[in-house]
């Protein structure tokens, strides 16, 4: 009988693992993806939607069209996982038994965890949020713009810096720059966590008159007074606040007792196995690994998960281990970008921002649909 592999979540990580496994194992396994929406969303596009540079329609595709024919897709939310009985329960009552389970349910945003955030601030971390922010930017007539972080961990750590530089550019193009003040509220003592990248970005910010307020971790927002306060004890005023909301892991995993307090899966940094269940693997945003929650991380983890599950099914010794590989672009505005590439053994050494990296990011955005989910980029 073929082995049964079930993948929860049809995002970047889940789609790629399912396609790689089906290609690798053929008739030796059945691969089933369970996804609540049945749509695959290209989240980096939210940023461009918020800035009015992209149409929301470009961001989503039918998950079925991204999966190999022999991968089964179940469009329904999973309600619970029972690791002892090895079954996934669906919200409408059905069950799917598994021999190996992959948790790729990503992260969800929980704005209500920060007092005043919903009423007082904007963000670009969901399609709705991005559309509301687009409208707020469209009607903005100048004032104090603050960009900050209201929860850790959050997806795509460079996004607030990128967004700050891009908003400043937008205000300049709209002739509103002289009437506006732009401030990045950084959780750390520099603009960005990777020090060499910060050294590239901070002079650009300075040149463009963008203020940097360091060690500012957003604790609350006062929508009436128009202020944001930090857990370090400081308060700033704003006319437009753009704050990354807090994230948590998927509720289904919390309800199944498979995660830590933040809703993240306890995951081995090399094997990507659940630390308490050897038949369960996790990747992408769902893990508790202190590595960036990014599509790139999910993309480089997927072949390891696929290869290790294939070894278990074939009864061979699993060889491949995740090396911590991540690669992402950082837009610095004015048509330039840099790249961050690193793994557990090699810290990033980002190149000087150039047009080449900007075009590389642009090409990647365009080519995403026909490359990443299918595993065409190694």
């Amino acid at each position, binding site marked *: 009988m073929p082995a049964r592999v079930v993948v929860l979540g049809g995002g970047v990580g889940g789609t790629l693992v399912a396609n790689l496994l089906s290609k690798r194992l053929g008739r030796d396994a059945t691969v089933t993806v369970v996804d609540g929406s049945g749509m695959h969303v290209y989240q980096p596009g939210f940023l461009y939607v918020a800035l009015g540079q992209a149409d929301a329609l470009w961001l989503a595709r039918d998950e079925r069209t991204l999966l190999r024919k022999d991968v089964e897709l179940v469009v329904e939310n999973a309600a619970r996982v029972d690791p002892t009985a090895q079954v996934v329960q669906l919200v409408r009552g059905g069950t799917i038994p598994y021999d190996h389970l992959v948790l790729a349910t990503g992260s969800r945003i929980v704005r209500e965890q920060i007092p005043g955030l919903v009423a007082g601030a904007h963000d670009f971390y969901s399609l709705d949020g991005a559309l509301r922010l687009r409208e707020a930017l469209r009607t903005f007539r100048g004032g104090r713009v603050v960009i900050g972080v209201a929860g*850790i*961990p959050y997806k795509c750590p*460079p996004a607030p810096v990128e967004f700050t530089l891009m908003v400043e550019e937008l205000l300049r193009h709209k002739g509103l720059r002289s009437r506006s003040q732009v401030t990045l509220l950084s959780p*750390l*003592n520099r603009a960005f966590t990777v020090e060499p990248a910060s050294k590239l970005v901070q002079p650009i910010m300075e040149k463009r008159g963008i203020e940097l307020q360091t060690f500012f971790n957003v604790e609350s927002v006062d929508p009436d007074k128009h202020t944001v306060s930090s857990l*370090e004890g400081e308060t700033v005023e704003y006319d437009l606040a753009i704050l990354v909301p807090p994230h948590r892991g998927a509720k289904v995993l919390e309800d199944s007792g498979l995660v830590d307090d933040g809703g993240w899966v306890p995951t081995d940094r090399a094997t990507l196995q659940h630390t308490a269940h050897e038949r369960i693997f996790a990747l992408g945003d769902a893990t508790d690994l202190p590595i960036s929650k990014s599509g790139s991380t999910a993309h480089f983890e997927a072949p390891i998960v696929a290869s290790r599950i294939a070894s278990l099914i074939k009864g061979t010794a699993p060889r491949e281990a995740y090396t911590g590989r991540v690669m992402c672009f950082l837009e610095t505005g004015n048509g330039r970008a840099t790249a961050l590439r690193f793994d*557990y053994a090699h810290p990033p050494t980002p190149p000087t921002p150039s047009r080449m990296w900007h075009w590389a990011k642009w090409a990647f955005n365009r080519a995403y649909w026909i490359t990443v989910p299918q595993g065409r980029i190694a």
Partner: protein
Amino acid sequence: MTTELPAITKSIDARGMACPGPLMSLIGAIRAGAVGEAFEVLSSDAGSRTDIPAWVAKAKHEMVAVVDEQGYARFVVRKAH
């Protein structure tokens, strides 16, 4: 000499994880934790030696210990408020 460390609520192995980095991960744990709990982060990044104590002082938490290990350091912080 061995340092007597308190019971650790959560240990984060951020060695080699340049992004979001050891300090950001520590801040995340402290945000989510309860007052009085101790958190530990392992870092192989030399910058942590200055960054972590600087944030702990600014945010008024307690730097319990910095322990040198082979190729990395262990930072223990108690959430003070």
